[in-house]
């Protein structure tokens, strides 16, 4: 074991300097006295070098794709190209206000328009909006579009139900709830949608069936055309969760599979950096039925000019500030322009090749549920570890000690003690073999070592139960705890 993460004894930023009792800022002319801040903001005053050292040290206690393979399934942690970072910082990209006149932002509108054209080809759906901030934001907006469509058809009263498979990402049922639908889970059979169960579930109440394909078990839903037929015959819409698009570029697309509306995550398939959990960038793509409901504005080309078009009477309106995450859209455009036809086709072929190779090798150590042929990700079950008195969680922590990031764990829940593994197309065979060797060392290590992991990181195993049981959520809470004023806050009853 040669990996060691940096372990700085770095204080919190407020402990870098003695923070004195804040004094009120000088009054601003015109501001009424009662709205004047009486006590200034309590925060340290530090030198620039102190600030830079502090955050540099913190950065060194963080895994990133640039430091290690990041095998989180359904997260598609591919290389974030440096050229995209450079381009997004150009003044012609970064120093643009969304409210500046269209005439002065023709280049930005052109980038958006061009990326949208590419995404219509990739999704096989004729209209695209880039307004969504992230995948789940796109899911919610798409369901609002479905809602608006059924309202126009006077069917909303009865079409209240969103169906989804038990393998669905958690965002799917949560988005459905936020959009005002009830949800109903369809059970899986051998890791895929049970067509008979779906047939039995659809009805005149069905508004939508949400599906990701390949699904979170890493399996392609081969019955997809039959699924589309069943949903459409019931009068429902078919929704494509594009989290797993990295498996199918140039192979198939939501349009061909019969989907009516889709979201994509540019921070997965199109390599925009996810920044520690965000920013993301969502894409909404719609077929002809739902396209009139896409958020405004839409980017249009009139003659040689690009414009923002607000004249869409059926549109659901706005879903966020401005048009979308342009800085990320630009990076995604650079990714698409670099790859082109051959490159995009190669992305999914290599991602699936990597995944099947990893699956065949890692499957020697833990059982793989369902069929052997997988797409961009695959599942393992850590259930046999229980006989040794260890769990999937211990294995994940032990993998961190190898200097590689663990797979997604305990999702999807239809597999006991599951691990969901994905290393996308940017990982070389050497890196895959390195990961497999790390996995072998971890899974064959002694139960004691597994339970004691991690030991090579900036901290040891973290007590997450304590974090939830005694919430300390800010410096203010830490000060209160230090002052031993530990009266629990009153809990407001939830109606």
């Amino acid at each position, binding site marked *: 074991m040669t990996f060691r993460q940096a372990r700085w004894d770095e204080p919190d930023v*407020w402990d870098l300097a003695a923070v004195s009792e804040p004094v009120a800022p000088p009054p*601003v*002319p015109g501001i009424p006295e009662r*709205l*004047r801040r009486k006590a200034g*903001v309590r*925060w340290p*005053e*530090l030198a620039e070098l102190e*600030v830079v050292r502090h*955050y540099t040290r*913190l*950065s060194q206690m*963080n895994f*990133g794709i*640039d430091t290690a393979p990041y095998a*989180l399934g359904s997260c598609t942690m591919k290389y974030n190209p440096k*050229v995209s970072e450079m381009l997004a910082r150009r*003044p012609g990209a970064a*120093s643009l*206000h969304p*409210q*500046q006149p269209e005439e002065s932002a023709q280049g*930005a509108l052109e980038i958006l328009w*061009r990326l949208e054209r*590419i995404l219509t*080809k*990739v999704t096989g759906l004729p209209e695209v909006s880039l307004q969504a901030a992230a995948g789940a934001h796109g*899911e919610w907006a798409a369901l609002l579009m479905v809602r608006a469509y059924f309202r126009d058809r006077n069917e909303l009263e009865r079409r209240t139900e969103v169906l989804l498979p038990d393998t669905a*990402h958690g965002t799917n049922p949560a988005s459905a709830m*936020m959009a005002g639908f009830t949800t109903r889970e369809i059970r899986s059979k051998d890791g895929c949608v049970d067509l008979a169960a779906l047939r039995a579930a659809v009805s005149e109440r069905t508004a939508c069936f949400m599906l990701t394909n390949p699904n979170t078990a890493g399996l392609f839903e081969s019955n997809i055309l039959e699924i589309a037929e069943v949903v459409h015959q019931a009068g429902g819409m078919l929704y494509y969760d594009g989290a797993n698009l990295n498996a199918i570029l140039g192979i198939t697309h939501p349009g061909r599979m019969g989907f009516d509306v889709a979201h994509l995550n540019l921070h997965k398939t199109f390599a925009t*950096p996810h*920044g520690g*959990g*965000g*920013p993301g960038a969502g894409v909404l793509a719609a077929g002809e039925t739902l396209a009139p409901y896409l958020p405004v504005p839409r980017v249009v080309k009139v003659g040689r000019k690009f414009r923002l078009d*607000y004249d869409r009477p059926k549109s659901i309106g706005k879903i*966020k*500030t*401005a048009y979308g*995450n342009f800085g*990320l859209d630009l990076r995604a455009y*650079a990714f698409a322009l*670099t790859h082109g*036809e*051959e490159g995009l086709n190669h992305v999914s072929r*290599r991602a699936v090749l990597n995944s099947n190779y990893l699956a065949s090798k890692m499957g020697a150590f833990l059982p793989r549920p369902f069929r052997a042929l997988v797409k961009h990700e695959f599942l393992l079950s850590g259930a046999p570890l229980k006989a040794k008195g260890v769990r999937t969680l211990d294995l994940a922590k032990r993998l961190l000690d190898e200097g590689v*990031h663990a797979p997604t764990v305990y999702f999807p829940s239809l597999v006991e003690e599951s691990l969901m593994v994905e290393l996308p*197309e940017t*990982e070389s*065979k050497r890196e895959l073999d390195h990961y497999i060797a790390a996995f072998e060392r971890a899974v064959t290590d002694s139960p004691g070592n597994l339970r004691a992991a991690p030991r090579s990181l*900036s901290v*040891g195993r*973290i*007590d*997450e139960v304590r*974090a939830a049981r005694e919430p300390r*959520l800010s410096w203010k*809470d830490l000060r209160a705890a230090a002052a031993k004023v530990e009266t629990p806050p009153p809990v*407001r009853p939830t109606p």
Partner: protein
Amino acid sequence: MPRWIPNEPGEEAALLDALGISSVEQLFTDVPKRARIGRLGVGAGHDEAEVVRQIDKILARNKPLGSFANFLGGRLTSRYSPAAVDAMVGRSEFYTSYTPYQPEASQGMLRVLFEFQSLWVELTGMDVANASLYDGATAAGEALLFCRRIHEGRRFLVPASLAWEEKSVLANYASGPGLTLEEVPFDDRTGRLDLDAVRKSVAAGDVFGMLADVPNGFGHVDEGVADLKGILGTIPLVVSADPLSLSVLEAPGAYGADVVVGEGQGFGISPSFGGPLLGLFACRAADVRSAPGRIVGATRDVNGLPAFALTLQTREQHIRRSRATSNICTNQSLMALAFVVYATLVGPRGLAELQASIAERSRTLASALGGVDGLQAPRFDAPYLGSFTVELKRGTAAEFLDRLRRKKILGGVPLADPRPNAGSTPERVLVSAGDATTDREIQKYARAAASALAAVGRSA
């Protein structure tokens, strides 16, 4: 083929050999033939140099803010950000990481987020902040749903002066659960909330929350916000606050806010044509289990040393699915990093000085524009900190702003809803001074505004 996909001679063959197959196509036999597609039709790829050349050529069709005298503002600004902010955001240990699902490997980002939460708590005077949401408008939308979780009712009050874009986003958040937005009118002279109207709405019943923005949609600071909690009683109050203004304005927690949201873009994040941005959210400790989004908590590791992890996750979609408090799965961690680094570099005194200096420039701007014939500037008689509303007595805002643009002036943000079915509204523009606004630019604006309006007068 891009260098980003490994392509060592023999590499792919070795992978195929290990699987006992001869072609990658054999890995796609599970995709039915009828579902297969032909070519995408996206054109050929390019090498890096050519990609840079092509994108730079397109970007050259933009005129960046620096090529104008810039009076755009409101929620999104183009305030200067110290280079050290981007240097930290550019640490690839941060920007190439994912959500810290394995906290032991991700203490760096977790600690950044804990500091960020702490800073928003200090600025707002609230108890708890989450680890950020998409942007200010969606944070307000999440706040609306949050209010419904902690209070009964179907009606949510918003100021009629709120920006149309934010109203539209809020209407979408309200629409799923069948809630309604109701606009509270404002005083025509001051733009201030009509508190009697709030009283009447509350007395009519069924109100589950109210949002007020500081400064408001007209740019003004309305001291009436401090009276709202007294009127609302147990009904939750959401304050949407500009973070920089909180360096000099009373913390909303001190006048009874139950939720404080905001747009954090002005703290170290480039406007980038509107994204990525930063949504801020804080609430009271008693309500934290109803809060949306990720929250980082302090705890200990097995050795008893301080450590940090995502916590209270039973609120979230990956655990609670359809009963989650929100569908949100992405926060804006990297932008939260920019926010906290910016504020720490500038420091609390520096923030207050910056806000005071911008306010002073905006007063100079208002007095210069106040003398322009055909322009009522400011339109409302109320204090401001950087932005205020002007109203045109003739011509349209679109024409006025276009004439200014031709003189290399970005004259402000038109306040009308641009959707054709939105109905007609007065020709109002939100005009903002910034940290870089000079007296010369202000004089230039006043002269250009006068000649633009004179031209409208002639053509009318």
